[in-house]
């Protein structure tokens, strides 16, 4: 079977897949930084120590 960059097709798939997965991570970061509008954050104070309050 022919080799691609010295690797067989399955190893090359892993090789290129790792690079593509990293590109996916980069695109995800790019999308969230430049395109997506930020969502409302959950109120930390509102939730704080819910457990202790409930216990009392």
């Amino acid at each position, binding site marked *: 079977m022919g080799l691609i960059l010295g690797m067989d097709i399955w190893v090359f798939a*892993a*090789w290129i897949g790792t690079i593509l997965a990293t590109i996916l991570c980069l695109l995800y970061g790019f999308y969230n930084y430049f395109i997506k509008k930020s969502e409302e954050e*959950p109120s930390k104070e509102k939730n704080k120590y819910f*457990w202790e309050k*409930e216990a009392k």
Partner: protein
Amino acid sequence: MDMIFFVVFMAVFAGMFTLLGYLGYKKTKTAEDYFVAGRKMGAIVIAFSYGATFISAVALIGFSGIASVYGHSILWLAFLNVFVGIFIAFVFYGFRTRKMGLSLNAMTLPELLGNRFNSTRLQATSGLIIAVFMVAYASAVFLAIASLFQVTFGIPYQTCVILFTVIVGLYLIVGGLYAVMWTHAVQGILMLVGMLILTIGVYAMLGGVGPAHEATAALTPDVLSSIGSPAATQAPNGLTSMPPFLSKPFMMVLTLIFGVGIGVLAQPQLITRYLTAKNEKALRLAVPYGGIFILLMTFTAFSIGPLCNALMVNNGIMYPTKIVAGTAVANPDAVVPVIVNELFPQWFIVVFLFAILAAAMSTASALFHTAGASIGRDVYEKGLKKECSHKKSILITRIATIIIIIATLIITLNPIDVVAFMCAFFFGLMACTFLAPYTLMLYWKKTSRTGAWAGMLGGFIFTMLWYILVYFKTAPNIIGTSIISEYTVNMLDPLFIGVPLSFLLTYIFSVAIKQDKDEHKTVEKAFENI
């Protein structure tokens, strides 16, 4: 000369980390500060801390060595490390974990489980499981790095172990998670520099990416045998090709890839990183940084392993060996250190060793912190004592962490075989025990306390039995021989059966024994922000 390098680097390391420990101490006012760095961490620190915790010295040295035996097929693990370990982990687990952790004021994985299912017993039990196996894992990390420094610098093993443990213990106990995460950022940079130079150097010596792979592909079993490389038999289709389907090398690669590649989703020390994010955006932006970090760690490490065979052939270097029971056997762990020692300049040898030390220290500090929190907060404070002030909570956990560190130190100074097995267990065990209840807890409102108990204990017991009775690496050392002789079964990581079983048990028991009123109320609160 070597000793001078060692002393200077060690002094810089210790000084820098002590300073970060002190700064962490100044910032640590509440339990939230100590356990989850005040939930104030930004994207870069989260990404580096997650990556430095995930990638230990074992991953860099050990897996490069494994790649030198089984070839580039191990690159599938690099793919899973980036795709599952970063993308899936952050996008499908990270955000929900952070939001639920905030709603339930949880600072550890056991606490998240305990609060979500309204059970301090569940919290204490999971904390105990985590702590016991983490001590073994941390011990194995120190054992590997101390052995490496002993060989390179000629410093006694005991001195290395004590020195490394004291430095990590000092900044961790004093500075809490602030210090741990800041030091991770520094250690991560050192790891990046070391691995980048190593990778570029190895590829350059072989003429670039294509020629390097072609030279490695051209190595025949006869050539590999001439340097004593186990790849002659373990990579039957060549070092840049997948082994034949269902052959022993294929099963070995399969079990390694999935054991670590999927197991990463349920590692308590990594889950803590999600809880430290200052906001959701920090977690989202940690994805690209984390992706690049893991790419530059695992992709490089797994790529150069097989190439080391070509370098050894070209330079007349024999594959390293070690003596086991009076016989010399191949020692994959020593492959990369041998290449660095033989073919790289003196200054890089020191940089590389400290990059590996940084990898070991970062993983160990995260393990100590998580294990200390498990014993201090989850087992003692919540499980036994029930109520505690913030200051006392930190004090208890600091004492628990000291106990964990001393236990690790004792085990590392007196290594026993069972420690190596427990370390090998770690990823698979955590996945089989926690992945199902953790995943269903985040995504299925009807997951009940009984379901979580069934999934957790079912996965734990199955994994232990599999390792003791079946798994080809551990069963022969425990009971003499595996009870299943078929290698396509006994070479399987327990994760292949344990995780689906744990999911099934969690589902069946959640449907059969439904939530009570208190649980239902807690669920509403837990999903409030999701």
